[in-house]
Each structure stands twice: as structure tokens, then as C-alpha cells.
């Protein structure tokens, strides 16, 4: 068996909004096929970190590699770093699926239209092929019968599942989940977490920002605790949840677990 490669490598990533340093030098690897969970209090930089990975936010400095290729910059022959073209950034984004806290489905398109939009326009698949893929993933999130519904007629949990299918339909290398259940009523989080669990079981590489500690403990291969833009604790779920070394992480966990 070969050792799984680091599909995402983040090196000394920094992000500032004006004088505010949100990420202060973050370094980590995500192995292919693993579930990497980021926990931390609000304002700790979790969402910003995720948004930097696909360049929705431009990092102030540092490097990100997806499957060995740098994201957002190129190294010229003479070794200089230059910003990458918009087209290349778009191509890279297509390889990273993202699921947002607020679902962000487009209200003027039906569930299936939301899902096939990017396969049609970005990957330029034939309509038939895009529909097949779309229906496949709609079935995976257990919404096969809702393909012609507009988002306004779906519950929050259903909308989020369509959003997951939309991201998966691009068949990305990595899925990013930005607090995918935080906007849902407690009785609806279960159906979304169930879908995420199934994806993890199939070996989807996932980077998950979440407040669902049960999910993090049960599904993750690795857990990272962020505090004020720095990695405070990092390790297997057992070590982070059962024997955290950092005092801050202990405090955080004692607050959220009770």
C-alpha cells in the first residue's frame, strides 16, 4: 500500500484585513481521502482559512498547494512568484467543492439546474451527461424526487443537501464545508450530517469547519483547533478531544461539550 499523498498543503498562510490579523502563519497538510476538521470559537479564523484555500479571500502571504500545484500564484522560470491568471484560478476552484453555511443556492434555478450549471458551463459537458451526473448526486443526497423544485420550496436541510450535490457534481478533489449545519434548525442538522458521513465513508477528501463536536470526533481523521488565527492544538480526534494539551483548547471544549 502506498502512503496517501498530501492533496492540500498549506505553508505559513497569513491573512490580514487592514490592521486585523485573522490568520497568523498556518501550516498543515491534508492527506487524500481523509477528513480534516477545523474547530474553534467564532472569530478564530476558521472560515477565512477555508475561503483562502479556494481564493474567495486572497491570502496576504503564504503558500497553498492543491495536488502539488500552487494555488493563486505561479513560479516563473527565474524563480519569481507572480499572481496567477483569473482563468487558472477558476480552473483550480472547479477542483475544490465548497458548501456554505447559508446554502447559497440560486433561487431562479431548480434543484437540478443548480447542480448542472457548473458542469455545463465550466466543464462544458453535454446536457445529457450533466443531467446524468446531477441526478446521480441528487440521488446520493436522497432528493431524487425534488429535482424540479425551486430552492424556496425546499427546507433548509434539503437546500443544503442540494448544495452538497451541486459541489459534488463537479467531482472535485477536495470538499470544503464551511459550517454547513450552523444555519439549520437542530432537527434538520441530522440529515445533512448523515450525507457528510456517507461522503467521508466513500473516501471523499473533506475539510470541515464545524461546531458539531460529535461529528468532528466521530468522523475526522484529524482535528485542528484554531485560536486567534493560530493552530493551538492539532492531532487525532482522540488526542484533541480526550487529552488536549493546550489550556485554551480545553476551555473551548468544556464550553461546547456541555
Amino acid at each position, binding site marked *: 500500500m502506498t502512503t496517501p499523498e498530501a492533496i492540500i498543503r498549506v505553508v505559513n498562510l497569513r491573512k490580514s484585513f487592514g490592521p486585523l490579523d485573522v490568520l497568523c502563519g498556518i501550516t498543515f497538510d491534508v492527506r487524500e481521502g481523509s477528513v480534516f476538521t477545523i474547530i474553534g470559537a467564532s472569530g478564530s479564523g476558521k472560515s477565512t482559512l477555508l475561503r483562502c484555500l*479556494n481564493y*474567495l479571500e486572497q491570502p496576504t502571504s503564504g503558500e497553498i498547494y492543491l495536488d502539488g500545484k500552487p494555488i493563486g500564484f505561479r513560479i516563473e522560470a527565474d524563480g519569481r512568484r507572480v499572481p496567477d491568471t*483569473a*482563468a487558472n484560478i*477558476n*480552473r*483550480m*476552484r*472547479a*477542483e*475544490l*467543492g*465548497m458548501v*456554505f453555511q*447559508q446554502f*447559497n*443556492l*440560486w*433561487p*431562479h434555478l431548480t434543484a437540478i439546474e443548480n447542480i448542472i*450549471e*457548473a458542469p455545463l*458551463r*465550466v466543464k462544458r459537458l453535454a446536457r445529457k451527461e450533466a443531467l446524468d451526473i446531477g441526478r446521480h448526486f441528487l440521488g446520493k443526497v436522497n432528493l431524487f424526487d425534488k429535482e424540479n423544485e*425551486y430552492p*424556496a*420550496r425546499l427546507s433548509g436541510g434539503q437546500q443544503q443537501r442540494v*448544495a452538497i450535490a*451541486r*459541489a459534488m457534481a*463537479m467531482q472535485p478533489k477536495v470538499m470544503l464545508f464551511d459550517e454547513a449545519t450552523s444555519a439549520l434548525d437542530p432537527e434538520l442538522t441530522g440529515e445533512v450530517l448523515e450525507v457528510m458521513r456517507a461522503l467521508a465513508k466513500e473516501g471523499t477528501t473533506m475539510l470541515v469547519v464545524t461546531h458539531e463536536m460529535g461529528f468532528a470526533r466521530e468522523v475526522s481523521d484529524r482535528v485542528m483547533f484554531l485560536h486567534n488565527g493560530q493552530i493551538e492544538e492539532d492531532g487525532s480526534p482522540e488526542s484533541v478531544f480526550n487529552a488536549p494539551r493546550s489550556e485554551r483548547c480545553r476551555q473551548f471544549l468544556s464550553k461546547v461539550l456541555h
Partner: protein
Amino acid sequence: MWDSLRQSLDLTLFWEYRTILLRGLLQNIYIFFGGALLATALAFAIGAARLSKRGTVRVLSTGYAELFRNTPEYVFLIWVYYVLPIIFSRLLATKFNFSPYAAAVLALGVSYSGFLSETVRAGILAIPRTHIDAAMALGMSRWMIMRRIIAPQAIRRMLPEALNQYVSLFKATSLVSLIAVEDLMYQVSMITVHEMRPLPLYTGAALLYCGIIIAAAQCIQHLSDRWRQRGWA
């Protein structure tokens, strides 16, 4: 007293001249569609430019919108018809003239593009940033996002306000008789000179304008209701 008023209001005179009047009305309709098309095209360009990342583009396009929003249509119509040809003639060193129709379409189109660009801008701004994030995260290009995600939603939001602007534009086409376009009002004044009976003629014209706009508004209401039923909210 009532009898004499009824007699002088007798709209049959209006009916007698129906062919000429209808021909006049057609001119209004042509100018309306020409002006509306021009205004809409310019409004999208200016509205998008007002949201540009570049400061100079934003300042220039905002200046354009403010200039034409705040200049009365009548003044601008006269300016385009009488002054603009002088400027062009000097610049090109040849004699240059607008036909009254071209001047009318140009003046009304540009004039209303100022108002409409504000509607376009507001419509685009009303689209939540998160919809654009989702599209970007899927690798869609800026142009693709504008065309597939922003425009279809923005246009639906713009529609009620834009329709008000089109109604105003249609009303404003009644000004074009002042630069000798042979529109409805032009024909009415010509017939009035001839018949010396302004009451039925001008009243008829007013009622006709009003009727057309009410009918158009009904159609539009019906259409937008159907859109809403399809879940396009």
C-alpha cells in the same frame, strides 16, 4: 350649459381623423421602442460600469447618470436636435444634420438610460454576495456569473421599476412634436389649427395615451404574475 359642453367635447371628431391620428401614434410607438432599446442597452452598460472596481470608470459612469437624470427631457431633446449638429459640424468640418426621428430616439434613449442605469445598479446590488461566492467557488468566470447568476435575478427585481420608467418614456414621446416629428400630438395640433376645435381633439389624445398605458400595464401585470407563479421570486 351641459349640453353645450357635451357638444364641444364630442369625440366623433377625433374618430373622423382616425387614420391621420393613428399614423401619428405609430410614430410615437416607433420612437418609444427605439428609445427604450437604446436606453436599456446604455443602462446595462452604465449600471455595470457604476459597480466597476476602477475608480475612474465609476466616477465617469456616475457622472453620466447624474447628468442625464437631472436634465429635463425637453431641454435635452432641443439640445440634441439643434445644438449637437452644430458641434458635430464644427468637429467634422462638414455639414451635419439629424433627422428629427434620430434626434428624438437619441435624446429620449440617452435621457432615460440615466434613470434606468440606477435601476440596473440597484438590481445588481440586490443580489446577495453569497450567490456570487457560490458561483465563484464552482469555477465560474466573472462574465458567466454576470450572465447566468446575476442578470436573470437582477432583471426580475428590476422589472417593476423599469416598467415605470418605460411608461414615463412613452409619455415623454409626446414631446417630440416640438422638433417637428409628425407624431400624435403634432397631428392633433395640425387638425386643431384646421378645425378650430381643441376640446375634443386634445381630450381624445389625452384619453388615448392614458388608455394605451393602462392596457400595457395590465399586460405586464399579468406577465409578472405568471412569472411569480413559476416560483421566480
